[in-house]
């Protein structure tokens, strides 16, 4: 019996190691394949704005900028909506509506991203263009709204990303809210809290999980490819403007890999993959760190209360 236990432990341990090995293997292969570009450009690859396959000048800055900018914008738009959906479904919604709403949000998550992209081209982009045209001239002077109203560009990309991210964040946030002990809410009501205050308390209790839900959405936004490339305008420029066509790392990989014939070009594209890999790693580590530090303070705060509970 003991031996069986040990075998089980070892077996799952090995499987866990396989996961670690895969992450390292991906990193190693990406680094090896992009060696030519790493040697030629070094760290300047991260801050060069030129992407010229003809003369062999490559820099990743516009793609890094576009990826982070579009993902952060998408997060700003999606977070309040996703939280609103989660709160409504888990706290306020009549029982009869709950299942259909859960089903619908999950359906959004199941739509392939190319379908989002096509919808983006034919519905979202013309709507965004109309919105851009109707913007008053005074606002057009701001750096956020400069440039011609094309429809294609950062705003469309951020909107489509937000729509794609909402089901993920809201599903996880909903589950997290569901796991908040009923005693928490009851305690809040017992103290005379209004419904809003009770929900706020529940949200506060679940905050680490909710941050996790948001970061999950961020991770998805960083790597999203097809829908973004179809609406972002694919122009490697660094710009604050929401109207400007820009580019992301995942999009340039999808677009240029098939026709990249010479070695340096391929190596530079692979290095973009490596950069995306590193940035995703950093973002995930930071969110882990954030959750970890928050859950530590969360367990520290109630401590003085515990003896009192014990005594009772």
């Amino acid at each position, binding site marked *: 019996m003991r031996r069986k236990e040990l075998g089980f432990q070892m077996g799952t341990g090995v499987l866990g190691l396989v996961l670690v090995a895969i992450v390292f293997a991906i990193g190693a292969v990406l680094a090896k394949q992009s060696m030519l570009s790493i040697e030629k450009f070094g760290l300047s690859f991260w801050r060069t704005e*030129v*992407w*010229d*396959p*003809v*003369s062999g*000048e490559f820099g990743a800055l516009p793609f890094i900028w576009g990826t982070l900018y579009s993902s952060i914008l998408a997060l700003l738009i999606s977070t309040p909506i996703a939280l609103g959906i989660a709160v409504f479904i888990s706290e306020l919604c009549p029982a009869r509506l709950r299942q259909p709403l859960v089903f619908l949000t999950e359906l959004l998550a199941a739509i392939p991203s190319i379908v989002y992209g096509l919808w983006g*081209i*034919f519905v979202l*982009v*013309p709507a965004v*263009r109309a919105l851009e045209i109707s913007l008053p001239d005074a606002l057009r002077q701001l750096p956020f709204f400069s440039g*011609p109203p*094309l*429809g*294609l*560009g950062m705003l469309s990309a951020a909107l489509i990303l937000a729509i794609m991210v909402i089901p993920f964040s809201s599903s996880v946030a909903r589950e997290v809210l569901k796991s908040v002990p009923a005693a928490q809410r009851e305690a809040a009501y017992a103290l005379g809290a209004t419904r809003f205050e009770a929900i706020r308390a529940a949200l506060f209790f679940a905050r680490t999980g909710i941050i996790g839900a948001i970061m999950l959405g961020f991770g998805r936004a960083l790597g999203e490819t097809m829908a973004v*490339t*179809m609406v972002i*305008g*694919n*122009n490697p420029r660094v710009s604050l403007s929401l109207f400007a*066509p820009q*580019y992301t790392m995942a*999009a340039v990989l*999808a*677009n*240029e*890999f*098939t*026709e*990249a*014939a*010479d070695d340096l070009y391929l190596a530079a594209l692979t290095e973009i993959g490596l950069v995306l890999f590193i940035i995703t790693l950093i973002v995930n580590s930071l969110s882990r760190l954030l959750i970890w530090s928050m859950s530590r303070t969360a367990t520290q705060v109630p401590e003085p209360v515990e003896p009192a509970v014990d005594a009772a």
Partner: protein
Amino acid sequence: MKTVHNSLAVLAGVVLLIGGAAAQKLQMNGAGATFPYPIYSKWFSEYNKQHPDVQINYQPIGSGGGVQQVSKQTVFFGASDMPMNAEQLQAAPGKILHLPTVLGAVVPVYNIPNVTTELKFSGPLLADIFLGKITKWNDAGIAKLNPGVTLPASDITVVHRADGSGTTYIWVDYLAKVSPEWKTKVGVNASVNWPTGVGGRGNEGVASTVKQTPGALGYVELIYALQTKQPYGSVQNMAGEFSKASVESVTAAAAAAAKQMPPDFRVSITNAPGNGVYPISSFTWILLYENAKDKAQARAMVDFMKWALTDGQKFAPDLGYAPLPADVIKLEMAALAKVKTS
């Protein structure tokens, strides 16, 4: 019980049949350009009907991928919309032949509200627009070529391909020939550092962006403009005529080039001289080792190529490609005879 028995016997028979057929069948793998994929898949299936023992598989992974795969010998033949350069040929383990199969054209498509007259362009004009030097539709240069057309004072939105593409290669190859500034500033490749404009993904991405954006000017393959019924302009050729892309004007460009065809067929026919020529035309090539390791495959491939260059050409016009001129076919037949099949 008996029925189970019977069906098992049938199943066994089917398995044997498939196994037996696979043993005799000659399979060849190729990969490369997406542009000729519709006619290649038509050819391979038609040829398979006539020669059931030969099956050709083709993966449309892009010209760059085709060149790479054939150089690494992971596929038997490659296909590309741009000829391999000297460096790439040097790096390949054996001598690679370029065999033109059909011709295609790239056309300027535009969307100007309230303009129904077909617009005329010249090479230098298109280059200046794509360089971002001409930014308004009512520019004097455009007006001069299009007398009588009332052009709006709106911005020109340049739309180009975002993905690396043989279509882009043909387009910028032409721009580089007619504009020295384009040649030095931007250059020629399957994807370039665009001075201006927005990028659409694929022909459909460019076509839909042009369709939706008032004031847009882009470029797509001829077949795409025909299928989507999008207005496209004529382009001034070297003889000074404004030529509209069609099967005839594209074949005329190839015929003009055939007179001085280099022996390895690696020739660009954009901006070809002569009357009735559409200037933004190009061959697309199949890449083949002259001395391949597998002689059985080489024999089958030569037979297939001979068929494609003769009987196969009749499928071209319906699919939006121009057939090769007779002179080029004659030269290619001579080149095919040099492929070592034993």
